[in-house]
C-alpha cells in the first residue's frame, strides 16, 4: 500500500510538471542566448530606463512562447515589485474593440484596486486607459500588455493596436506591448499606420535541439530526492528512467515522433500519455508505456472510419470509387445505386438490399464525413439527387478494406477491377 501511495504521488508529481508550462520551460531557458534571456533583457531594460517598447514572439503553436513570457514576467515581478502591471488580452476572446477596451479597463481597475463599472461606455473606457497610462508613466510604473493571438487583433480591426501604440508615443507613458502569434507573418497583417508605430523586434521560437530534449526529458521524469518519497524508490525510479532514455529503441521512437511533430507541446502530450499508463503496482515506467503512447498518438482517423464501416457501406464506397475511375465527373446516389445494381447483376453477390437501406448507409457515411456533398448550392433537391464526392483517397480505401475485419473478397477485386 505504501508502495502504491508513493507511485501515485510520483505520478501526480510528474503529471503536474507536464501540465504546467512554466515548469517545463525553465530548464530550457537556462542558457544565456536563449529566448528567455533575450526577452528578459528587452523588457527589463525598458523598465529600468523608463522607455516604451514593442516585441513580437513568433513560433509554431506549442513552442512555449506564452510560457517563456510568463517566466520572464514572473521574474520581473519579483525583481521590481510595485513597478510592473500586467494586462493580458487574448485575440480569441477580445478581438472586438468594445470587449478589448472593457477588459483592459477591468484589469487595470483590479490591479489598482479601483471600482470597475460594467456599464462604462467605450469612450469612457478608452479615456480611462489613456489617463492610466499617463499616470503610470509619471509614477515610473511600467504596464506590460500581453496580446495573445496577435494575428487576430491585427486582422479584426486595428483600433485597439493603434490607440495603444499611439498613446505610447504621444502620452508620457511606460508601456511594453508583447504580441504572441503562431503566424510568422503577423506583422505583415498590420495596417500601415500601426506598423509604423510598431518596432520590428521579433523573437523566433524554434523547435528545441536534440540535446535540449534529452535534458528536458531527464528533468521532467526524474523524481527529486527529498523526504516525501522513500529513498530506495527514488533511486530505483531514476535508474529506470536512465535505462529507458539511453535505450536505442526509445531513441528511435522519439526520432519518429519528432519527425512528425517537433514542438515541445506535442512532446509533452506524448510523455503525459506514457506516464499515465504507468503500472501503479510496480511504480516504475517501462518502454512499453512509451510504445503504447506512440501508437495512440499516431492515429489515422480515415482508416479507422473505413474499418468501422459495415459491409453495405463498403459496397457504397466501392461503387463511388468505380464511378470515379470511369471518369464520371459527378455522380449522385441514384447513379451509385445503378452501379450497385450492375455489380449485383454481373457477380450475383448476396448483398443486395433495398433502396431505403442503402440510403441509410449513405447517410451514415455522410455523417462520418467519409463522403460529402460536392457543392452546397442544391439545397432544395432531394438527398438522392445531390452530387456527392469521396473524402478519402483510393489508397486509404484500399488499406482500410484490407484491414477490415470481414470485408468480402469480391469487394477488393471490384476495387482493383
Amino acid at each position: 500500500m505504501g508502495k502504491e501511495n508513493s507511485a501515485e504521488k510520483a505520478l501526480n508529481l510528474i503529471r503536474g510538471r507536464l501540465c504546467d508550462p512554466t515548469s517545463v520551460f525553465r530548464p530550457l531557458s537556462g542558457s544565456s542566448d536563449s529566448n528567455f534571456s533575450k526577452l528578459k533583457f528587452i523588457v527589463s531594460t525598458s523598465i529600468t530606463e523608463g522607455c516604451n517598447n514593442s516585441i513580437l514572439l513568433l513560433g509554431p503553436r506549442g513552442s512555449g512562447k506564452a510560457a517563456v513570457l510568463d517566466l520572464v514576467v514572473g521574474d520581473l515581478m519579483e525583481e521590481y515589485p510595485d513597478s510592473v502591471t500586467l494586462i493580458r488580452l487574448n485575440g480569441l476572446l477580445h478581438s472586438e474593440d468594445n470587449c478589448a477596451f472593457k477588459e483592459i479597463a477591468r484589469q487595470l481597475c483590479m490591479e489598482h484596486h479601483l471600482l470597475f463599472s460594467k456599464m462604462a461606455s467605450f469612450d469612457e473606457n478608452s479615456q480611462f486607459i489613456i489617463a492610466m497610462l499617463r499616470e503610470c508613466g509619471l509614477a515610473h510604473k511600467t504596464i506590460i500588455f500581453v496580446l495573445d493571438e496577435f494575428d487576430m487583433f491585427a486582422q479584426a480591426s486595428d483600433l485597439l493596436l493603434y490607440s495603444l501604440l499611439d498613446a505610447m508615443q504621444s502620452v508620457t507613458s511606460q508601456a511594453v506591448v508583447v504580441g504572441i502569434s503562431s503566424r510568422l507573418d503577423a506583422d505583415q497583417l498590420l495596417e500601415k499606420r500601426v506598423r509604423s508605430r510598431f518596432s520590428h523586434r521579433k523573437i523566433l521560437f524554434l523547435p528545441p535541439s536534440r540535446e535540449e530534449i534529452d535534458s528536458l526529458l531527464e528533468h521532467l521524469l526524474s523524481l527529486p530526492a527529498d523526504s516525501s518519497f522513500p529513498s530506495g524508490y527514488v533511486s530505483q525510479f531514476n535508474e529506470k528512467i536512465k535505462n529507458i532514455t539511453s535505450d536505442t529503441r526509445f531513441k528511435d521512437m522519439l526520432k519518429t515522433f519528432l519527425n512528425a511533430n517537433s514542438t515541445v507541446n506535442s512532446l509533452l502530450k506524448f510523455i503525459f500519455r506514457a506516464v499515465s499508463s504507468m503500472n501503479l503496482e510496480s511504480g516504475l515506467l517501462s518502454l512499453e508505456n512509451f510504445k503504447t503512447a506512440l501508437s495512440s498518438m499516431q492515429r489515422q482517423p480515415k482508416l479507422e472510419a473505413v474499418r468501422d464501416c459495415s459491409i453495405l457501406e463498403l459496397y457504397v464506397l466501392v461503387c463511388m470509387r468505380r464511378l470515379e475511375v470511369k471518369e464520371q465527373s459527378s455522380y449522385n446516389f441514384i447513379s451509385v445505386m445503378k452501379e450497385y445494381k450492375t455489380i449485383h447483376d454481373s457477380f450475383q453477390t448476396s448483398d443486395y438490399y433495398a433502396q431505403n437501406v442503402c440510403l441509410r448507409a449513405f447517410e451514415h457515411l455522410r455523417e462520418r464525413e467519409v463522403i460529402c456533398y460536392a457543392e452546397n448550392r442544391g439545397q432544395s433537391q432531394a438527398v438522392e439527387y445531390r452530387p456527392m464526392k469521396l473524402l478519402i483517397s483510393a489508397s486509404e480505401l484500399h488499406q482500410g478494406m484490407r484491414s477490415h475485419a470481414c470485408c468480402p473478397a469480391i469487394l477488393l477485386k471490384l476495387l482493383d477491377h
Partner: protein
Amino acid sequence: MSRLKKHMTREENSKVTRRSARFSSSVTPDNPEPNPSHQPTVADLTFGEESITLDALLSSFPGRRSQILDLIRLIGPLDSPALPVMVYGDASTGKTSVALQVFRHLNRPFVYSSCRTCCSPRILFESILNQLLLHSKCSSNGYASAKRCDKPSDFVNLLKEALSSVVETLNSTKPERKPMGKMVYLIVDHVDLIKEWDKGTMILQFLFSLYSVLKMPQLGIILISGLPPDVYYSNVGYTDPLPVYFPEYSEEELRQIFLKNQANKKLYSAFLDVVLRPFCRVTRRVEELSTSLTSLFRKYCEPLDDLTISPNEDLKRRLYSNLKPHITSCLNEIFRISSRPLDGDSRGERRQKASYSSEKGEELEMLDFHMSTSAKYLLIAAFLASRNPATLDASMFDSTGGMDNRKRKRKASEKSMEKKEMAEQEAVMKGPGSFPLERLLAIFQCIASVGDSSFGEEEDEEGEDEATGYDKESKNMMSDILLQVSSLCDANFIIKSGSCPLEGSIRYRSMVSEDLSLKVARSLSFPLSKYLYRR
C-alpha cells in the same frame, strides 16, 4: 442531508437511465421541481448515486475494456492535473454513457453540458456556469440563469470565479465516504454540432484552447465528439486534445451487448446465431440493430408457448425455418410502424399474400398508408409532370385520354445510343424536373378522366341543373384539388422549387420515387408505364 441525497438520486437516476444503454428499460423521466428549501452543495456535483467498482463498470460495458481503462488512466488518480481529453467515435458507441459511468466510479465532481441541448454559445456558457454556481432554475427566480453570459470573454472571467469558489469549498469540505478530490471536471458532449453554429469555428477554437487560457490546474476538460479530431483542423492552428477512440462494436461484442438484458439467454443466443451475422452486414449500429431485432425476436418466439425453455438443436432448426422468410424482408426495412395490431396480424398477412401476382411470381407490395383517390391521381400527375418533358404533353395526353402511339422507331445508330446514355446520365444527375401548377392540373384532369370513363363523359357537360352524382363529385373534387396540392406539399411528396424568373409563378417538383408511384398507380389500376416517357 438524506432528503437531499434522495432528491438528487431521483433526478440523477432519470438522467442516468436516459443516457445509459439505449435499449435498457428506461424509467419514465420525471423532473421534480427542485425544492427551494434544499441548499445544493458541492457534493451534488458528483454523480450522486452509489459508486460502482471497477469490475462492475467494466462488465456493464462489454467490449469497452481498453477504452474505459484508457480514460481512467488519462483522468489520473485523485488530485492529479490532466490535459484535455477528447473521446470520439461513431454514434451509439457508448461514449457519453461510459464517460458518465467512469465518473460515477471515480466519484469526482463534474459538470456536464451537451451541445445538442445547449444549441447556442449563450445557453452552453450559462448552463456550465449554473451548474458550477449550484444554481437551479425554478419558479422563485423566474427560471433565469445565475449570470448572463454570451461572449467568450465574459465566460472566461465568470468561469474562473466560479471554479475558484468551487475549489475553495472542495478544499474545506470533509468528504463522508469516498474522497472527492480537489479538481472539477468539465464534460462537453456533442462537440461536433458546434460546427453548424453561427461562428462555430471560433467557438470550437475557444473550447480547445480553454485549458491554456484559463491556466487553472484544478480543471480537467473532457470533450465528447461524434467526429474524429481531423475534422476540427483549421488553418489557424489549434492545440489538439488527447484522443481516445471508441470503435464500432465487433460482432462478438454486439452479441454480448444484446444478451445482457435478456430473460432467457439460451433462447436469445440461438436467435442471435442465425440473425446477427446477416444484419451486421448492413449496419453495426446498436440502436438500428436493436429496433430490427426486437420485432424479429417477437416473430421468432411466436410458435413457442413457453418462453423460458432452452431450445435443443431440433427446436432451433424448426424455429429458424419458421423465421427464415421474414429475415430478408426485415433486412430491407429501416423501421416498421405497425398500423395493424399484432393479434390481427395473421389476417393482414393473408391479405398481403393475395397481392402476389401469379404470373410474375414476384411479390408486389401494397401501399401501406391511406390516401384519397384525388390525392393519388395528383401524386401520379406530379410524378409524370416531373419525369416527362413538357413538349410531349400534347401527344401523350390527347383528348381521348389515351396514349398516342409512338412514331415508328428508327434503328438506333451508335452515336445516338451514346447520346442517349449521356442524356440519361444527365437526367439522373439533374433529378426530377420542375413544373408550374397549371401543367399539373392539366395532366391531373386528363388522367383522372382516364380512370373512369363515365367521368370523361360528364366532364364535358357544362350544364349544372341535372348534376348526377358523378358530376357533383367531380366538381367537388376540383375545388379540393388546391387543398390537396398543399397537403401533398406538406407531406413532402411535392416541393416548391425556385420560381420562374420571367413569369414569377411558383414551380413545383415531385419528390416521389418510381416505386412509390408504381404502388399508387397499381392501387388505382392506372397504367402508369404507358405514360412514362423513356428516352
